[in-house]
Structure formats: structure tokens, C-alpha cells
């Protein structure tokens, strides 16, 4: 416990708060769904990450109690954020984006949401 620890914890909290606010602000400000997708997936992750790190440092440095389970939430959010973003992007394209608005794949088949592929040619074994 000391001034340095206090400054460090406060700094992490302030950074986390600012990034969390920026993520939500980007959600309001940007003007296209695909663009809006960028703000919450990234800014909010660092926002929560900063707060969780501050919480961890607080219990170790100030309460003198070892606590690492904040790492679990941070890891969980880090793993699920891209999956959520992919799902939201796919739902958006399914509803609002036509295939001709997208660039061509450059390969034999189109994008997965618009083009079917036979089982015999399936490159990934999904069984």
C-alpha cells in the first residue's frame, strides 16, 4: 500500500471508464451497423479489462488478499467478444446486406451465408 499503488489503481479505473464510455458513444455516433460493430467489441473490452485489472490490484495491494479470479471474467470476455461480433455481423448480413454489395470471394464459391456447397466438397470435416 502506498501512493504509487493508489495512483496505479486510480489510473486503471479512469482508463477503463473512459474506454467503456467511448465504446457506448461509438455505438451512438457511428452511422452504419457494420461500423457500429467496431466500437463495442473493442473499446468496451479494454474498458472492462481495465476495471478488472484495477479490482485485482486493489484486492492485492490495498486489502492484502490475493485475488485472481477477475482473470476468469477477463478471459471469458476476451474469448466471447469475437464470437459475439461474428454472430452479430452474420445476422446483419443475413437481414440487410445483399450479396452483390460484397466483393467477390475470388474463389470458386461465394460467401458462406449466400452460397451452398455439397457435402463431398466440404473442406472442413463437420461430421
Amino acid at each position, binding site marked *: 500500500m502506498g501512493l504509487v499503488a*493508489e495512483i496505479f489503481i486510480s489510473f486503471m*479505473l479512469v482508463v477503463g471508464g473512459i474506454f467503456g*464510455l467511448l*465504446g457506448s458513444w461509438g455505438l451512438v455516433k457511428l452511422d452504419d451497423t457494420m461500423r457500429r460493430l467496431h466500437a463495442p467489441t473493442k473499446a468496451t473490452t479494454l474498458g472492462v479489462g481495465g476495471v478488472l485489472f484495477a479490482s485485482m490490484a486493489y484486492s492485492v495491494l490495498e486489502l492484502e488478499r490475493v485475488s485472481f479470479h477477475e482473470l476468469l471474467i477477463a478471459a471469458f470476455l476476451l474469448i466471447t467478444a469475437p*464470437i459475439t461480433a461474428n454472430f452479430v455481423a452474420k445476422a446483419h448480413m443475413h437481414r440487410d446486406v445483399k450479396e452483390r454489395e460484397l466483393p467477390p470471394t475470388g474463389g470458386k464459391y461465394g460467401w458462406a451465408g449466400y452460397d451452398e456447397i455439397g457435402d463431398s466438397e466440404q473442406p472442413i470435416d463437420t461430421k
Partner: protein
Amino acid sequence: MIGFATYFAVACFSIGLILNIWRIRFAPGVVDRILALDTMVINAIALLNVYGILVGTAVYFEVSLLIAMFGFVSTVAYCRFILRGNIIE
């Protein structure tokens, strides 16, 4: 000083939640609503953790872990519903 920083973080995440609610109310489509709901979940987790620092307990950890898991599952379920028309085939 930590007290001021905590109040600042609480203010930031609360304003974030209000902005999310504004986006849910005035969203151009249903996908934006899902995105805003997902962001709300993440902001709520952060708010709970900041509150845990404020009152000095670790009780809110379990709450935020559960909210994180439910938030992820519900976002995936919403998207699945939009993509396929049902959730479990």
C-alpha cells in the same frame, strides 16, 4: 484518490448504459438492438466490479461472472433466431 477514480468510473459506465438505452430505443434495425443489449451487459459487468471495489467486497464477482455467461448465451440465441428462425433445431 481511489474513491474519486471509482466515482468517475461509475459515472462513465452509467452514462454508457444510458447511451445504450438510447440506441435500443432509436435503433434502425433489430441487429443494432442486439448489439446495444450486448454492450449493456458488458457495461453492467464493469459497473458491478467497480461497485465491488467501492464497497470492498468480492461478492460481486460471482454475479458478474454469471451475467457475463448469460449475456453471451442470450446474444448468441438472439442472433441464431434471426439467422435461422428458431434457436434449437
